[in-house]
């Protein structure tokens, strides 16, 4: 073979030139003869690698991101696939995804948050095969994962790891006052806060914003459930101001009271965003707060002074128990993808226990289990604080509980209706009853528009 052609072939293999260019240049060399061209076409085909576009969330667990990237590259090398990875942060993922779907250009594989399968169900591929295979190999999916990944009877996402909120306590302050972790919000948390706080020193007993944020909305969901209430009933119908009115009212009143009546919260808490309670806690201004494990990760990784002084416990409960909503990241494949099989293969690779363990080990408790099998891993015993994370995950419920997870439920969360409701009481001066009714009307509207699925 002409050396020039083989050079070109090498270039093509190395990805330095595109197939078209290869064909063009080589055609010039062969003089464009028919025979020459067919040979070239066959060569070009053989050389062209498969390409897979993968979108990942940039987690705050930077070590985890690195592990994941490495694993994906290793897979790419092994399978001879050219993998293109895009990292996005929480803020921008939705914009990019929507734009790319509308432009007909979504990636092959995407890491999604818990609302992903529901939100994008119109364009996602059925991954029941992969999901059930993995689930049965790993002891079955945890209930909340099962319910969120399954849409209209089929799995649209393969769950990867769970995230949960936990209750943070300053152990040193607690022990200094000879107290024990509170079990119920009312009255335990209130008492606990009152006994440990010191406003003169800018130390507050409880830091939980009711502002529009994931923290705020998550807390509202949890407290409604813990009082036996909720946004939806078991059939997925709106029940804020109807079926569960009593319970919701009590829950809402309690939450508002923590700011207005009991005054255990720092002033300005209504202006907090998701970052603020982290910062306040790290600055030593809070005795307790609710947050995802991200805060713990940040402390341990940066060897923060408070890391040793922090105790993680199960989220306190209400009269109906302590119910929390978990979230999980999952893998989803887009219908438009021409590499669906490759994508499924990659999922299997990454979820293989050996690989996942590698990821989990560096996550400092972030990568909670979504399969029962993973929950038994000794890793979760390695730090006493992990127990709270694990236990919270194991008993968590899905969004929409006691009903199924629906697009309407996802939208209500997306529009932060619950925090708006609380905000209307605290800063808007509405009575809890009025705010409840107002929020219910909004929920009903969304439900009418979205139907049940």
């Amino acid at each position, binding site marked *: 073979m002409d050396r020039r052609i083989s050079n070109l072939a090498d270039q093509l293999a190395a990805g330095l030139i595109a197939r078209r260019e290869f064909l063009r240049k080589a055609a010039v060399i062969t003089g464009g003869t028919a025979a020459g061209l067919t040979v070239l076409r066959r060569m070009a085909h053989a050389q062209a690698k498969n390409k897979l576009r993968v979108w990942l969330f940039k987690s705050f667990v930077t070590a985890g991101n690195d592990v994941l990237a490495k694993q994906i590259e290793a897979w790419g090398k092994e399978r001879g696939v050219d993998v293109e990875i895009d990292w996005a942060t929480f803020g921008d993922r939705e914009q990019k995804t*929507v734009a790319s779907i509308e432009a007909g250009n979504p990636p092959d594989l995407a890491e999604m948050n818990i609302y992903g399968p529901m939100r994008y169900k119109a364009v996602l591929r059925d991954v029941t095969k992969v999901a059930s295979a993995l689930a049965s190999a790993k002891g079955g999916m945890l209930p909340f994962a099962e319910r969120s990944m399954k849409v209209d009877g089929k799995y649209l996402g393969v769950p990867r790891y769970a995230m949960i909120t936990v209750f943070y306590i300053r152990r040193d302050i607690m022990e200094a006052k000879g107290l024990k972790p509170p079990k119920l919000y009312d009255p335990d948390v209130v008492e606990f806060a009152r006994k440990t706080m010191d406003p003169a020193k800018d130390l507050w007993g409880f830091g939980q914003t009711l502002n*529009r944020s994931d923290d705020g909305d998550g807390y509202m969901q949890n407290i409604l459930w813990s009082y036996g209430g909720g946004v939806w009933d078991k059939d997925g119908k709106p029940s804020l101001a109807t079926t569960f009115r009593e319970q919701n009212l009590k829950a809402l009143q309690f939450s508002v009271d923590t700011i207005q009546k009991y005054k255990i919260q720092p*002033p*300005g*808490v209504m*202006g907090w965003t998701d970052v603020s309670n982290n*910062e306040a806690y790290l600055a030593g201004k809070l005795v307790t707060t609710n947050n995802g494990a991200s805060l713990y990760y940040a402390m341990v990784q940066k060897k923060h002074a408070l890391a040793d002084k922090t105790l993680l416990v199960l989220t306190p409960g209400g009269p109906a128990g302590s119910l929390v909503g978990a979230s999980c990241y999952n893998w989803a494949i887009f219908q438009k993808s021409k590499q669906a099989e490759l994508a499924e293969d990659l999922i299997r690779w990454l979820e293989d226990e050996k690989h996942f363990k590698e990821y989990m080990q560096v996550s400092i408790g972030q990568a909670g289990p979504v399969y029962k099998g993973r929950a038994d891993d000794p890793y979760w015993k390695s730090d006493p604080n992990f127990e709270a994370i694990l236990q919270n995950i194991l008993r968590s419920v899905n969004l929409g509980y006691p009903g199924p997870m629906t697009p309407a439920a996802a939208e209500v969360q*997306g529009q932060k209706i619950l925090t708006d409701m609380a905000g*209307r009481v605290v800063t808007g001066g509405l009575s809890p009853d009025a705010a409840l009714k107002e929020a219910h009307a*909004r929920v009903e509207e969304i439900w009418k528009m979205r139907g049940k699925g």
Partner: protein
Amino acid sequence: MAISTARLPGTVRSGAKRPVGLARWLGPDWRLGFLFVLPIVLLVLALVAYPFAYAVYLSMTRKYVGLPPVFVGFENYVKLTWDGFFRRAVQNSFVFTFASVACKLILGMAMALVLTSNIRWRSLWTGVLLIPWVAPTVVSALNFLWIYDYSLGVLNYLLVHVFRILPQGVGWLSEPGTAMASVIAVNVWRGFPFFGISFLAGMKAIPAEMYEAAAVDGANALQRFRHVTVPGLKNIMMIVMLLSTIWTFNDFTIVYILTKGGPGGATQVLPVLTYEIAFGAQRLGEAIAVALYMLPAMAAVIIVLARYMRKGRGR
């Protein structure tokens, strides 16, 4: 006399030649003229008009992400008109825009007056005062988020520990009253240099003789300002205010980064609402309807203003 005595677009020059034949209909310079504006027209058609037309179409559909659009006529717009949250957003948008523009007007004027006074190192100060306008908005918004922070922010630190004006920090972004004022402040900080530099240019074009004449007539500084400066700047003021109103009305970044529309929707403005409905609720048709709702009103304002300017000039 560029920006200083600039007109609103649309005012026609006098002194045309008499056209003949085809040229009578298309204009005497039509060949060259079309050629000159071809690039712009292509650009605007391809990158603005076409997407805009598609957006208008989408606003009249029920469109969820990933699903094909279903034409519903004006249903989205009708629904919005009765929606309490939309109305509140409209109200907030108006408050946000007009308060911001008013403040920018005042500060911009102050900036221009200062920079045309008898001070040293004028160039340096001009450059420095342009900083807010020149910095990326995302950066400035994040910066202020950090400054307004309740526990660690420097604003509260200054007020409580340094100047000791307040006993305790304020949740700037947490009370409706202060939240709106806080985001307005950031918008004003970011935008006033544009006013300033435009007014500055405008003032430079006012002939010195007019000030001298006024001084001779016995006018003091304030009167000179009222009777010479302000009229001379009228045109540029109108234009800058118009542009700024449009830009401020459409501003998304500042409110989104600082409050995301909270607390309890107190700073929810139309662009942020659009974003939420598009990406939170995934209802694209409705989201675009929100964004386009005020468009006819704003376009009408521009047209009315253009007519007023044309009449008022008559040169």
